[in-house]
């Protein structure tokens, strides 16, 4: 079973979470922003000796969870997958709560 460990680096932006697989083949950086959850995913691929990095901002939990479910990491690194899903989901929920509170405040 491939395992994960969290590494919150000192140089990472405030509030960001880094989750990596033990073999370093896959890593995620989760960064809460005012727009939602910014996720940077990096994966090393043996095919073509490639390192693929993609960055996207998720505005709601549903989109984020759908993206997680489509990730092959779900099968290759189940513990990393579970970590990402849980921590990303929690960050997005708090973002959504804050956005609701802001809207309520503006509505008054």
């Amino acid at each position, binding site marked *: 079973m491939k395992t994960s460990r969290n590494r919150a680096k000192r140089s990472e932006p405030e509030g960001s979470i880094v989750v990596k697989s033990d073999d370093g083949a896959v890593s995620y950086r989760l*960064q809460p922003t005012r727009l939602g959850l910014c996720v940077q995913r990096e994966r090393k691929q043996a095919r073509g*000796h490639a390192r693929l*990095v993609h960055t996207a901002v998720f505005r709601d939990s549903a989109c984020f969870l759908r993206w997680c479910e489509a990730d092959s990491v779900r099968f290759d690194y189940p513990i990393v997958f579970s970590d990402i899903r849980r921590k990303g989901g929690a960050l997005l929920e708090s973002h959504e709560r804050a956005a609701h509170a802001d809207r309520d405040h503006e509505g008054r």
Partner: protein
Amino acid sequence: MNEPRTLTAITKDGEFFRRIADLAMRVTSELDSGEVSAVLAEACDLCGADAAAFASFVKDDEAYESYRFILACDPTWCLEYESNACYMHDPWLEYTRHHSEATLAKRIPARTAQQIEVVALARRFGFASAIVVPAQSPQGLTRLGALCLGSAQPEYFDEQTLAAVSVAVTGLVLRLHAWQIATLRDELLTRTRLSDDDLALLAQQREGRSSKEIASMTNTTSQGVDSRWQRLNAKLGVSSRTTAAQLAAEYGLI
């Protein structure tokens, strides 16, 4: 309910060019990737597009090539792109390697079965019609960048609007490319902690100087220079000084 504006109508509005230029000005090295993704999403909206991706490529070392994507589209596309190893057969990336002018994606031939699959995948994720705008790189470097704007409408990006859209977004593409290189450079400097002396040594190698020449310029011995190279190669995780200097150039260090 208002009909969506056509791209022709959008590009005939002078405000369109000003607003895209304002977006380009916002892209500075201080932005993080989330903020850049937000800028990209705004550019996508201004063009009336459904999807946008800024792709960049750099050859890291002997072992790895990096493909980076900042997305303003369904990110599941990138997962499928990776699973199918599309980066090995992407005709739009291949176009960017050899051309500097913007073009319509439909003008880029997909010759092999794998290339056709890459294009079909893009179409499924909002790039049924698309424009590809490359960013130039200095000669001798592999790094490249390209903005791809897409629409789910098959003829949204067409011959009539190609020139206007490419003029509008070229500045943004250059700024995104510069941002990407600056980000990579900072990450590499943080990771490797290269000193000014290390950078000077890399620059001398890039200029083709031998250990003997460097030794005489720095009042040291050839053996001393070779020892510095051993340490420097270890810091960068490469096996030769040629690769080290190429990596430093690709990442904008020298």
